[in-house]
């Protein structure tokens, strides 16, 4: 099924929200207002949003260390996400999680694993849960090309398939795991082909084409919801920025050619590509401009909100470790 016009507008809006949120985040990071690491999804918005839009509100997502796009793609509001990046107490995780773990439960993001490959079993378990509870929820599992080589990929896809769980495995294949290219690390360069080992359908799709990703994801989601089991989707995409804002790979030999990066930025940017497609489909320039302005305002508002929010109080350090505070028995020196 193809996207409706409403969905197309929403797809454009959400891709743009990810882009602008992360561009702004990068600026804030450079100004020292965001601590820790910062992995941007810039360039990968088509794969993320196309997949997210194939879901219903009550569906679930487990993502990765490159975690900003997933909640925004699923429709999260930006304030609490930006506040989290700035380590504020109004952050979505009260300043405990940060950039690698932007999980917004209210839109169904049940976890973002910064342990590469660690989210794949969690997502598979969430699908098991849906099945046992008799819910018709589906769980979308994002992971990178690098994560495919973890044992959890293998173990989880086998169980997901064996038990026909409602999970969609979506690989954001940006060709690199930090500095390691796919060909240097995958004996079998086709990730979709690995699906045969678990008797699940394996699909390759152009991740820079949000409609194509939506179509593939939609088919997979329908299949999952029908109880027919998982699908493995390999969305070929590209990361425009460095692996991590503060990572200077510092190799004399760059791990990816400058021309390759330039080519993708210029010709394979999912946002201008989709904008052009929308105009061709008959949307007006002014409609798109309205969306663009709205997105800019939402991002600015998020920064304002985060800026004005307080930092956590030292007394909160041990909160939310357990469901109920453990009564201190005896003295507990720090």
């Amino acid at each position, binding site marked *: 099924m193809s996207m409706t016009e409403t969905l197309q507008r929403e797809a454009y809006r959400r891709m743009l929200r990810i882009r602008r949120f992360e561009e702004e985040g990068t600026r804030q990071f450079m100004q020292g207002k965001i601590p820790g690491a910062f992995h941007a999804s810039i360039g990968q918005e088509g794969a993320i949003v196309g997949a997210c839009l194939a879901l219903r509100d009550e569906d679930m997502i487990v993502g990765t260390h490159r975690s900003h796009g997933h909640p925004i793609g699923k429709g999260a509001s930006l304030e609490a996400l930006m506040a989290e990046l700035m380590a504020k107490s109004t952050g979505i995780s009260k300043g405990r999680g940060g950039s690698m773990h932007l999980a917004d*439960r209210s839109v169904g993001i049940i976890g973002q694993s910064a342990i590469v490959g660690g989210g794949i079993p969690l997502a598979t378990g969430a*699908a098991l849960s849906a099945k046992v509870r008799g819910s018709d929820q589906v769980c979308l599992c994002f992971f990178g090309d690098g994560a495919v080589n973890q044992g959890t990929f293998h173990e989880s896809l086998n169980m997901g398939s064996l038990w026909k769980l409602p999970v969609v495995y979506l690989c954001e294949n940006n060709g690199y795991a930090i500095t390691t290219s796919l060909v240097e690390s995958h004996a079998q360069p086709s990730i979709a082909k690995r699906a045969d080992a678990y008797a699940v359908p394996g699909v390759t799709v152009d991740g820079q084409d949000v409609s194509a990703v939506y179509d593939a994801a939609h088919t997979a989601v329908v299949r999952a919801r029908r109880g027919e089991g998982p699908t493995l989707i390999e969305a070929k995409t590209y990361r425009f920025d460095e692996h991590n804002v503060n990572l200077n790979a510092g190799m004399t030999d760059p791990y990816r050619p400058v021309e390759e990066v330039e080519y993708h930025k210029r010709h394979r940017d999912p946002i201008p590509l989709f904008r052009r497609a929308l105009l061709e489909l008959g949307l007006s320039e002014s409609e798109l401009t309205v969306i663009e302005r709205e997105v800019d305002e939402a991002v600015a508002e998020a920064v304002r909100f985060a800026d004005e929010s307080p930092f956590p109080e030292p007394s909160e350090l041990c909160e939310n470790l357990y469901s109920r505070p*453990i009564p201190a028995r005896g003295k507990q020196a720090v």
Partner: protein
Amino acid sequence: MAAAVNDKSGNAYVRMSYLDALQQAQMEELERDERVIIIGEDLAVYGDGKVVSRYPTRTWSTPISETSFTGMGIGAAMTGLRPIVCLSIASFMYLASDPIINQAAKLRYMTGGQIGVPIVFRCCMFYGVSNAAQHSDRPYPVFLNVPGLKILCPTTPSDIKGLLKSAVRDDDPVMLFEDTKFWTVKDEVPTDPEYLLPIGKAAIRQAGSDVTLIAIAGAMRVALEAVKVLTAEGISVELIDPRTLKPLDTETVLTSVAKTGRLVIVENAHRVCSLAAEIAAIVSEQGFEYLKRPIQRLAAPDVHVPFSPVLESLMYPRAEAIIASVKTVLR
């Protein structure tokens, strides 16, 4: 199974083994709460046969994939279920340590409380029967260092019933280390399906005034023997079973040492950084003024479990060693 017998206060008890009590607790929790599921390998082999045939859709017999079925249990716990993940022999826990430590123990905190992980990780410490190093570990010390976990080592049939049920109902990840030395031990177990024991509360198995003896997990068996002998000799031992290793009931320990001034700790895990070390450290910090004599730790030596029974029998503290240690601190 024997018929129930009522005690003075009208509570009914049935005599059953530790393993049966565990099975009963699981069965009752499955019956009570449909969110409870069981995940693990060859469930029927490790004693869960009845459960499997009664609850086919809520028992998931898995492929050999410890890392991921543990992670799946965590994912299910995050989304509305209350899984019991059976890792069978405790030495396989290491394959699951990434999801247990990096996910289950951390997710609530890392998401600022958005996500809870109500899960039980069960495994059995299966040692003393010549299964050699790769099958004989007692690895609870490895997990004690990890914030966010709760860790239980029940030593009686009624405790495993009450603690396993509390673990299933707890909103946090709980690790339950059974000790196979108790599997066949029988005792009275309350029939009440609401029989729950609080997590975090030690049991004083015998009150005494001369010396505090803390015995952990399987070491309780020999500790009880030792206490019998010592009592016969007129030595008054206060015998403590921590039951919950994390969070530890330090109050009970310190109160006892305040009374006796003498402490012997015995366990079957490897000695370095074991629970006995932590207890000794706590007492030497917070109960130093009570101590009349050096603390004595008895544990397995810092060597792997050998296959040969002749050698393995040297690994775990024996009653005589406990008796000797008690006498040393009384000297």
